[in-house]
């Protein structure tokens, strides 16, 4: 009979006294020196489910197992390990509370070499562990025992701890606006004092905010004003001397703006920039040739359509896509809004600027990358909408 044959052993009826007897027997075993190898193996099989060894059982082992099974069947406690086996099985299945000391002894058994452990030492260890668990001392196994206890039978969170955990996860909650209204709050000043001071405090705060905004507002808005002036996409068709003067003023005040990635002119006014290297842009060529007819009314006047109409030599194909806004400043758009949601933006950042798109193919690969990126953004936005960071 192999250790696997122990599955054939019938499970006895739960006996509430068996646990105590089993523990007593365990203590006796600890005090009595090393286990008999056969008993040790049987215990291992009991603890590990009978899959300890795969080799064929020796004849002696088979006979020993048969004896144990017969003893358990007859419930006559004839085998020296029968009571222990029943106790262990019961202890593993029953919901009865262990005595603290017995529990600790079992913990020690499971994490330490038990062979030859003197009972007195075990008892002292258990007492020390108990004190550590009660917070009165320290023991190397206290942390492990706490984790075991929490894993097997976690304690309910008290209300305050739950509130703290929730507050940590949901940053939008604060002390004063708990949705339950039952959360403990900080000590608050008397109501009469609140009534006396809150109008003054709020008034002073409003004054400070107003003064700060009046003074600092124009300064803080200065870059936006620059953007507002830079943003118009001056095309060959709609540029006016006044706009030219404004544009020149902007360039004087912010000469590097156009070269920055976030500069609207660089991002959104492509055709206003002169072509480099002396090469005329498509607009110039088209104007010289006097073409550009056939542009759809919805796109007429917009820089890209007008430019291409010249290049395409007046091909009068209908443009069905509505003309987009003339100003696109997606490079300016921040990654997230004030609520932490990720914003729609250009996908250019997903691709290597030094590697232009191939003239042929590559669309599917690009879309793979775009979809993966924006799907991640969508997930993040969902978390943000739930108030999670």
């Amino acid at each position, binding site marked *: 009979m192999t250790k696997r044959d122990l599955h054939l052993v019938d499970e006895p009826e739960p006996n509430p006294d068996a646990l105590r007897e089993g523990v007593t027997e365990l203590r006796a075993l600890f005090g009595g020196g090393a286990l008999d190898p056969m008993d040790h193996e049987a215990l291992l099989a009991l603890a590990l489910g009978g899959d300890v060894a795969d080799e064929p059982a020796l004849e002696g082992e088979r006979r020993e197992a048969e004896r144990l099974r017969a003893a358990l069947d007859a419930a006559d406690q004839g085998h020296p390990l029968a009571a222990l086996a029943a106790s262990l099985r019961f202890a593993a299945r029953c919901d009865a509370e262990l005595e603290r000391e017995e529990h600790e002894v079992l913990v020690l058994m499971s994490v330490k070499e038990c062979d030859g452990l003197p009972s007195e030492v075990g008892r002292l260890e258990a007492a020390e562990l108990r004190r550590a668990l009660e917070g009165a001392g320290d023991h190397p196994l206290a942390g492990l025992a706490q984790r075991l206890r929490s894993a097997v039978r976690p304690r309910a969170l008290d209300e305050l701890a739950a509130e703290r955990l929730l507050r940590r996860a949901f940053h939008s909650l604060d002390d004063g606006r708990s949705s339950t209204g039952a959360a403990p709050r900080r000590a608050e000043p008397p109501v009469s004092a609140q009534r006396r001071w809150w109008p003054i405090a709020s*008034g002073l705060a409003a004054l400070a905010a107003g003064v700060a905004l009046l003074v600092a507002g124009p300064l803080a808005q200065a870059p936006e004003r620059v953007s507002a002036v830079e943003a118009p996409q001056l095309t060959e068709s709609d540029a006016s001397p006044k706009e030219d003067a404004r544009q020149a003023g902007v360039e004087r005040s912010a000469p590097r703006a156009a070269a920055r990635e976030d500069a609207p002119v660089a991002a959104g006014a492509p055709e206003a920039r002169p072509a480099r290297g002396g090469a005329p842009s498509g607009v110039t060529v088209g104007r010289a040739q006097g073409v550009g007819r056939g542009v759809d009314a919805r796109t007429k006047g917009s820089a890209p359509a007008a430019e291409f109409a010249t290049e395409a030599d007046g091909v009068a194909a209908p443009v069905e896509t509505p003309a987009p806004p003339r100003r*696109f400043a997606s490079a300016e758009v921040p990654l997230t809004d004030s609520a932490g949601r990720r914003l729609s933006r250009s996908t*250019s950042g997903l691709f290597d600027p030094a590697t232009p798109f191939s*003239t042929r193919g590559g669309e599917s690969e690009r879309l793979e990358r775009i979809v993966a990126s924006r799907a991640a953004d969508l997930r993040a936005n969902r978390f943000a909408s739930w108030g999670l960071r």
Partner: protein
Amino acid sequence: MTKFAAHVLTGVMFVGALGACRATAESTVARESSGCAEQTGAVDVALVAFLSKARAVHAQADLAEADADAARAVAVLDELVRAPAPGGEQPASEVREVLADTLARIAELEAQRGRFDAGRAAVRRGLALAVERTHYRGRLHEVLGALEKRAFDELRARGDEEAALAAKARSAAALREAVAIQEDVIERALGGKRP
């Protein structure tokens, strides 16, 4: 609280509110005039669904191209660019760029089929969407340059030298613009330094 204090507080709060309103109004005007107002939508389900749909459509076009069936590839891609897209008349940047990329592919396929006018029309529509100087716009110009080069070859083979030279000029201009856009992209990536 005395009556005097109440008056003082009222005045203080009025001044504060006035300042806040002014700053908010300035901020709003500046933001709207910079054209950012329409670009601040968060990434949402509709956008991701559109992008997923576009991916599937391009996969269909891949299969059609693998079968050397350019007409079918154009047909499935054309459905994507004709269908309603999130954002309506002011689509999100992602939508504009994906549509522009799709139109570039349509133009390239139409050029393969010798349908140069259809290809030019697709490029024109794409350029109306990809208005920023990005890879998308650069690719449209590059596709256009290749298309005009094909037209040049075909026209010259037919003996229409004048039309062929015009196509050649258009091809050269489109390719120059593609190069210029690419230089701009690299320049921005390098923080304003020329490559």
